[in-house]
């Protein structure tokens, strides 16, 4: 396959952006889709996070458990989320408080997106079909 000059430039630019993003966040999962395709991108790389960003925005007000990369699991009501997938929780409690009493006097907290390992969602908050369709659409490039 041959690329025209502008396509190649765009492709390099997107790959570079993805590399920078990957270095600065933990969301490898979100980039898997692009990694498998070596075709020139037709939309900005920020769209990759947009899907999950809007998805989390819809979950605001729901009870979630956020498991961090230091094995700490925090349960609370999702207050807000931003473009980096930083998460703000309210009425938080640590799942194993006897083992982790480090946050006993914290009720509201901000969790940096880069340290999140999993977000456990309420079953009724997951529309698998919708997510499947949306990720496939993104993978095709719109």
């Amino acid at each position: 396959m041959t690329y025209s000059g502008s396509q190649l430039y765009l492709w390099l630019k997107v790959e570079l952006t993805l590399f920078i993003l990957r270095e600065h966040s933990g969301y490898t999962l979100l980039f898997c889709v692009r990694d498998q395709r070596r075709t020139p991108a037709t939309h900005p790389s920020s769209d990759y996070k947009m899907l999950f960003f809007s998805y989390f925005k819809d979950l605001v007000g729901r009870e979630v458990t956020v498991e961090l990369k230091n094995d700490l699991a925090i349960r609370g009501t999702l207050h807000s989320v931003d473009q980096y997938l930083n998460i703000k929780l309210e009425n938080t409690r640590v799942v194993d408080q006897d083992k982790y009493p480090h946050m006993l006097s914290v009720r509201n907290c901000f969790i940096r997106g880069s340290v999140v390992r999993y977000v456990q969602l309420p079953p009724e908050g997951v529309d698998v079909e919708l997510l499947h369709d949306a990720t496939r659409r993104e993978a095709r490039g719109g």
Partner: protein
Amino acid sequence: MSTGPGLESLVDQNISVITNDGRNIVGILKGFDQATNLILDESHERVYSTKEGVQQLVLGLYIIRGDNISIVGELDEELDASLDLSKLRAHPLKPVIH
């Protein structure tokens, strides 16, 4: 973005920060930026151990680089006052492994 989880609401409040290397630093939030770099005033570190109660080390004015931050918690003064830190024993938090 005004709807995002900014730290504006925590400025001039007591916060409890957990860093990627597992430290717990408590202080007054004076400033922050997009990368979650923080400026903490009158800060101290709470050192957890299983052998003795929580030790508090005075640090003073501190800047913590955003890269190194896991959690920024709003310290509830009432809850914090009700804690008997000298009796609290726990393993130090594990470092974050990316």
